[in-house]
């Protein structure tokens, strides 16, 4: 569903807006004056129609719930150009991350790969599994074959500590 569809019947929810501001740990977001520098340089604009300035305006107006359930917040490439170029330090990037975090808290649809990475970290410490790679001549090799040192997985105590961190909001 596109953002426009989500918006057509929407009512602003200022409590949700406060939640985002609390996550940002600052109120720079309200200083956005819609100069559109973020959108004009956005990597995801051309291919995925992400318009960061619209997101900023919608959050400011209190349409956070609609954004949190929209796929659009998962199109950010995290290239950080919006944040770099924002004259108001309102940082669309950080707003996007706050919206994603809220989506996860509310257990709305989240791209599976992110959750998979989290459980992989819990299990092994790393977000990805060790892979066998091939040379251009199609010879398979791994770390050992390449004489790369073995680096240990985190100590057992890590799992409990990480779970504790995941409970925080």
């Amino acid at each position: 569903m596109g953002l426009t569809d989500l918006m057509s019947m929407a009512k602003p929810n200022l409590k949700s807006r406060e939640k985002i501001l609390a996550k940002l740990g600052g109120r720079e977001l309200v200083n956005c004056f819609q100069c559109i520098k973020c959108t004009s340089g956005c990597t995801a604009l051309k291919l995925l129609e992400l318009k960061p300035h619209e997101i900023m305006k919608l959050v400011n107006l209190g349409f956070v719930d609609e954004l949190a359930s929209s796929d659009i917040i998962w199109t950010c490439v995290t290239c950080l150009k919006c944040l770099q170029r924002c004259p108001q330090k309102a940082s669309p990037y950080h707003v996007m991350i706050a919206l994603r975090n809220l989506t996860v808290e509310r257990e709305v649809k989240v791209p599976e790969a992110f959750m998979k990475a989290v459980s992989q970290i819990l299990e092994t410490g790393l977000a990805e599994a060790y892979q066998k790679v091939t040379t251009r001549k199609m010879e398979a090799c791994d770390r050992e074959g390449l004489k790369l040192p073995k680096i240990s997985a985190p100590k057992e105590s890590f799992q409990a500590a990480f779970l504790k961190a995941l409970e925080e909001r």
Partner: protein
Amino acid sequence: MKVKVAVFWGCCILTSQYAYEMSVRELLPRFGVELVDLREALCCGDPVRSVNNFAANYLSIRILALANLTGLTDLLVPCNRCHFTISEAKRAVERDEKVREKIVSILKEEGLEYNSDVKIWHVIDLLHDCIGLKSVGNAVVKALKALKLASHVGCQIIRYSDLGRVDDAENPRKMDELISATGAKSIDYNEKLDCCGSHLMLSHPDTALSLAGGKVKALQSLGVDGLVVSCPDCGLMFDSKQKEAGTTVGAKLNLPVLYLTQLLGLALNIEQEKLGLQLNQSPVEQLLSKISA
């Protein structure tokens, strides 16, 4: 010069981008840099940031705590994304006492301690600012004068400036200067700051590939001999996934892509095997044949 630095590799390098790790391990000691691995392999927290910002900061700070165990105060982070994630976490705990206290108390349960003095380096600023262009140039035994190359610095080590980054956000030069130090020419091009798209591999893989493919396609039309990268995610997108990326932009891509540390290694006449050049999936032979002549 003799320096000892702790090194944090991150997931991407340790699990698949072995060529970057091999070339870093091979190259830096030649400049008097001793690398000390951390006790454990851990994720920097980048994919966790979209799920839970606090937990991402915790992972990053845990890495700084592991670095603290080595007794060293310089930490090399050759991955752009890890470099950014750790820098962000450091800023978060320095600005927000509550966050710091919470993280410090979780670390304490494991007997770990955060040390705010640990400085974070990337390969680019370590070579450019610490070792210095002059020393790099002096070490070159095989000038790569025949090569016309393009640099791809990547997004997250140059943005955002307030965080204190490795190079200028809009006109990064350090990587080009390092390429020039080998005798090769580093060109300026319109797409220089375009992103490789790797973060989107988690949610929109086709779009991610078309971002990478579009950039390689543009570079191919400029007639460069190769693309130089210094981030494992960018390496994965432009090198390992180049063929796949080509199909998303309707082009046959065959641009040699190599790590900056591999390029410098070639200029220092380090054996290709040791630099992991057999692992690059792009046709690096094209480039190698130009410099062996």
